[in-house]
């Protein structure tokens, strides 16, 4: 039972962490090497890793997707997809895919003369499912060691904590003002039942009980 509880709690925590890790923006420092466009099949479950940039795209079996090929400072490749999120989930409200593709094209550089850029993105690169993170914005940085402070995520988690505290406070107030009084009334009603039960028991003691009590009064008091 203990293991079941911890397994469920761990799965729950992993789901929540995974959800935030997938959805919240992250920054990579990379070097853009190329961009391309490729037709993607969208008719199986991996559809969840692609956007629905417009209403029609939700029903399409395949469509063209733009990609940005990059290399990280450690030499490992990273490929981003470049899709609108529009008004759909996740709420990035990205409409400027074509502009972003142009900026990426403009920032292309070689290993000999690298131009490092910070790519803001969400999502995961999962090679087995051909899943790509979606690039949100791109901007040049000084070098591969540039520090980027995730202001949005800091603000987001502070805001989330405030919301959770407010909801907790609301619940406590509701319990104090609306549930506890009812429980108290119920407790008082129960006390009433117990009093009546005691009284009934007293009556049931009857003549014999009162006689024994009278006998008790004859018992010697303990001497000091």
């Amino acid at each position, binding site marked *: 039972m203990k293991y079941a509880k911890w397994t469920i709690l761990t799965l729950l925590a992993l789901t929540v962490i995974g959800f935030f890790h997938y959805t919240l923006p992250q920054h990579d420092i990379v070097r853009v090497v190329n961009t391309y466009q490729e037709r993607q099949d969208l008719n199986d479950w991996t559809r969840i890793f692609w956007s629905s940039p417009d209403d029609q795209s939700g029903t399409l079996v395949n469509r063209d997707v733009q990609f940005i090929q990059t290399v990280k400072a450690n030499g490992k490749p990273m490929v981003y997809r470049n899709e609108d999120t529009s008004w759909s989930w996740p709420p990035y409200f990205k409409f400027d895919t074509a502009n972003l593709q142009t900026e990426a094209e403009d920032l292309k550089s070689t290993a000999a003369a690298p131009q490092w850029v910070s790519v803001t993105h969400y999502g995961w690169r999962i090679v087995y499912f051909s899943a790509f993170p979606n690039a949100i*914005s791109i901007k040049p940085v000084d070098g591969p060691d540039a520090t980027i402070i995730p202001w949005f995520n800091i603000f987001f988690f502070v805001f989330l904590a405030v919301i959770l505290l407010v909801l907790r406070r609301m619940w406590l107030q509701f319990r104090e003002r609306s549930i506890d009084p009812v429980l108290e009334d119920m407790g008082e009603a129960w006390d009433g039942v117990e009093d009546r039960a005691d009284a009934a028991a007293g009556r049931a003691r009857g003549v014999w009980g009162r006689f024994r009590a009278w006998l008790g009064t004859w018992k010697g008091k303990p001497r000091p």
Partner: protein
Amino acid sequence: MIAFVRLAVFGFIAMTIMYVLLSIYSRSVERERLEKEWDAERGGGESDARDAYIEAGMKTYEKSLRAKLIWLVYVVPTLAVLVLIYLTN
């Protein structure tokens, strides 16, 4: 366009739920404050004067700035979306 309508509708529902919860909470806190104020100044116990005092206090609260600030529940997320749209694009 359907996606926009969906966002607007669900956003409105979420903001309304938050608005209702917040206004109930804020009213409850104000009522508790009024009750405690009365009890501290003139002792506890139920009475018509106490009820009248609390009702009058609640009427004042309904017109107060704090009660009106709860409308920010609708304003702030809408502004946040507009700012996000501007910053992303």
